[in-house]
């Protein structure tokens, strides 16, 4: 039952974050780029206020998979190191937690460029 609820909460919270993104694009008339930037910054701010970790505890992947978690983990790393090492920690800690998303994107982007070729198909 716990497993079922964790899926349900991941689905609902993840879905809601995506709906916020959709509203920014449709109602706010923003480009996908602007939308994602706003969400990342929101994630960072929420972590600064100490609100994002409780959301992860509640929703699991529903909070870690959306791009907001990228802002959260950058801030989280910076804050953790800042606590230990002060000023220098702000810089050194930043990528402590988040490296996986970016390094995966770089490596897989490179591999994809080796294998694939862009194609223009309508459907």
């Amino acid at each position: 039952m716990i497993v079922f609820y964790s899926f349900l909460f991941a689905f609902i919270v993840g879905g809601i974050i995506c709906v916020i993104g959709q509203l920014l694009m449709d109602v706010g008339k923003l480009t996908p780029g602007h939308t994602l930037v706003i969400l990342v910054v929101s994630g960072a701010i929420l972590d600064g206020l100490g609100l994002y970790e409780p959301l992860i505890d509640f929703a699991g992947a529903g909070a870690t998979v959306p791009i907001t978690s990228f802002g959260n983990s950058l801030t989280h790393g910076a804050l953790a190191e800042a606590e230990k090492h002060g000023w220098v920690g702000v810089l050194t800690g930043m990528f402590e937690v988040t490296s996986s998303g970016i390094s995966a994107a770089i490596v897989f982007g490179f591999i994809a460029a080796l294998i694939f070729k862009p194609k223009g198909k309508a459907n």
Partner: protein
Amino acid sequence: MDPQEYQQIEQQNTPPTPYLKNCLKAFLVGGIICAIGQAITFLYMIFFDFTDKTAGNATVATMVFIAMILTGLGLYRKLGAFAGAGSAVPVTGFGNAVVSAAIEGKTEGWVLGVGGNMFKLAGSVILFGVGSAFFIALIKLILVSMGVVEW
């Protein structure tokens, strides 16, 4: 015909944005992607030596890998056309932005094309993520040293 009058005619003849339908599609697809992420997290916790804290990173990397395959096969483009923010907001959308730009740049060579264009779309997410994390950490550090808040 003056611009105001024209804008009225244009609006009357342009189909309205289907806000509700778009949000519903974004909710469903975004929710399903996150639920898949949850399943991957469980798999890492059950079959490998991950805790619920450390499985997050492995999950993100796996999701980006799936995004690469779907992008290369031209399926993520179709998903994006259907789901909008539902497929753009999850980390797979970040992967799609990097991978599609990398594939596209191939004809301009590995250094200038692939290397130079890879973060054409995703670069701003990294910049603003890092920038906001820096300032938030800085503000908190100042507040802590002033004794306003605690770590």
